[in-house]
């Protein structure tokens, strides 16, 4: 059993002392008492807010940083992807950079020559490879970087958020490649903010908070634990804009919980008051997730083809059935716009929220649309 463990950390701690002046001393405890083991061929992910110590931890496993305390044991050849295209010289062509970056990744020149065609094919850069890298788009830059790095034949692959950039097509290709490597027996240590990726690929997930592991276990549990903590964030900083000729005074929530057993509609009532001389406007709301991705944005003009006749004081109610919406917490933005739907009178993001009850999120995306299958 013991021989199966390829990464083993015990009581690892690291403190930064940033240079803030000669006399002032500041310290940042980036990692505190980190202990965990990763077994061979495991897909192990780290999640947590920015600054929680994920990258520092990856650097320690990659042997780029040495911990102040604790022991780190890593068995096998490690390939750290903490950034792609590190050390690229923008003045040189893509081809020259393949050799430069390859040697930085520890390849011999002979090896690069032997895989050059494969790199080129994987990167899909074609003739662009003769162009200077400074003329590349970010996507092309990442493509070139990943294509070289992926040929490093690692036993342990360390990936830090590097797949977040680039186009969807190439991103999927990279993930497929990573999955292939996993099938070949490679151990993967992964960091991402994309909880979808984390849940789909990981065998185990650790949640970092201020340099400590606060939760470790199967992906669904840890991810939902993290999201439930994180979800408090958006409503703390409500974003409000608009001329306030119409002002939203009060938002009353009549029902903010939907379950597939009760099927009771989510319903809200909004009270407004008029400050300026407007008599018509558009009222609408939108449903978003905690990252302000809009799921739906209904407004009165779209649905009914008419405007709201605005009174000095008035109220508007709306209710809807979040059918097929995946279980989870959602946010509601509420807004009054002018008749052209261009300038906001009052627009409040994250004004309120509702929850859809149900089993843990297993379905990918926001909604489970009805599908007719034919097999």
């Amino acid at each position, binding site marked *: 059993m013991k021989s199966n463990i390829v990464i083993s950390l015990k009581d690892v701690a690291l403190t930064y002392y940033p240079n803030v002046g000669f006399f002032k001393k500041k310290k940042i405890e980036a990692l505190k008492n980190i202990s965990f083991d990763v077994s061979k061929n495991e897909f192990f992910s780290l999640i947590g807010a920015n600054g929680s110590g994920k990258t520092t931890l990856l650097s320690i496993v990659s042997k780029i940083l*040495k911990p102040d305390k604790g022991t780190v044991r890593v068995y096998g050849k*490690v390939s750290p992807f903490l950034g792609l295209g590190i050390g690229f010289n923008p003045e040189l062509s893509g081809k020259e950079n393949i050799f430069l970056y390859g040697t930085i990744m520890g390849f011999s020149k002979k090896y690069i020559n032997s895989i050059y065609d494969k790199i080129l094919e994987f990167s899909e850069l074609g003739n662009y490879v003769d162009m200077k890298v400074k003329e590349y788009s970010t996507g092309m830059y990442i493509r070139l970087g990943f294509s070289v790095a992926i040929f490093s034949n690692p036993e342990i692959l360390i990936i830090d958020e590097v797949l977040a950039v680039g186009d969807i097509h190439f991103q999927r290709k990279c993930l497929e490649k990573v999955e292939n490597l996993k099938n070949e027996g490679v151990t993967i240590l992964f960091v991402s903010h994309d909880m979808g990726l984390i849940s789909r690929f990981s065998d185990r997930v650790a949640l970092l908070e201020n340099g400590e592991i606060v939760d470790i276990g199967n992906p669904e549990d840890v991810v939902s634990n993290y999201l439930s903590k994180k979800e408090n964030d958006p409503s703390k900083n409500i974003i409000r804009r608009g001329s306030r000729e119409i002002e939203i005074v009060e938002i009353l929530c009549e029902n903010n919980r939907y379950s597939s057993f009760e099927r009771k509609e989510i319903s809200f009532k909004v009270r407004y008051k008029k400050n300026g001389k407007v008599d018509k406007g558009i009222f609408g709301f939108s449903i978003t997730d905690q990252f302000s991705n809009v799921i739906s944005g209904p407004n009165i003009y779209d649905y009914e083809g008419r405007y709201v006749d605005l009174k000095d004081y008035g109220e508007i109610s709306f209710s809807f059935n979040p059918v097929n919406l995946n279980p989870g917490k959602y946010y509601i933005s509420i807004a009054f716009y002018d008749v052209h739907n261009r300038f906001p009178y009052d627009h409040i993001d994250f004004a309120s929220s509702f929850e859809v009850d149900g089993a843990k999120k297993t379905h990918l995306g926001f909604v489970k649309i009805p599908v007719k299958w034919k097999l």
Partner: protein
Amino acid sequence: MINLDLIVELIKSDLKTKYKNSLLGFFWIIFEPLFLMIIIYIVFNRFMRFNMKNYPLFILAGTTLWRFFVNTTTQSLQLFHRNRELILKVKIERLILPLSLVISNLIIVFFEYVIYIIFYIVINKSFPFISLFFIPYIIIFSFFLFGISTILSIIYVFFKDVKAGWEILVQALFFLCPVFYPFELVPYNFIHLYLINPVAVYVIGIQNILFYSNLPDVTVTINSIFFAIIFVLIGYLIFNIYEDRMVKSL
């Protein structure tokens, strides 16, 4: 242990960026000393009537080495800082950075001295084979530069002030090196003090080989090798002690 392919690629990348984008490219290596020669000739042989045979050649022999010293050390100050991504995100032997900086400057200086020798042949109508000793000599000097560059690049990570301080020190050192005046003019009483300055020793050495066409005397030779070994040792020691702290401070 040391990745030779990486050193070669880093040097290639450095030299290509230096010369690829300019119109004249690699010819700048010729134009720079040529231009300097013409200016020195006009100023000292026509205007000031400085009485020394082949004075422009004398100056060129010293200034080329001096510029090697100044360019390398000033570039080394921000070396680790400039390459922080390379240090923080990839696993490489970090001493490769000062090493390839010195070698890439060494290559340029090598060509500059080849040009110097061509000038020498044209002016003196002779080619002393002893001039070829400049090759091992600038390699010894490179070891000294490697040591001092490593020290400077580490100090800079902790104290940014070292940059301003170094620039002042370099200006002072310039007058303490026999670049514009022959070493013989230094009063005998001060010679020992004068030779504490390592750069002065190397300048004297290279002038012996390339201008006076004789091998440097024993003291200069021993001192040149001594300074190279000492500075490489100090640099290596400081690097080993401070590497981890430096990486964390980047």
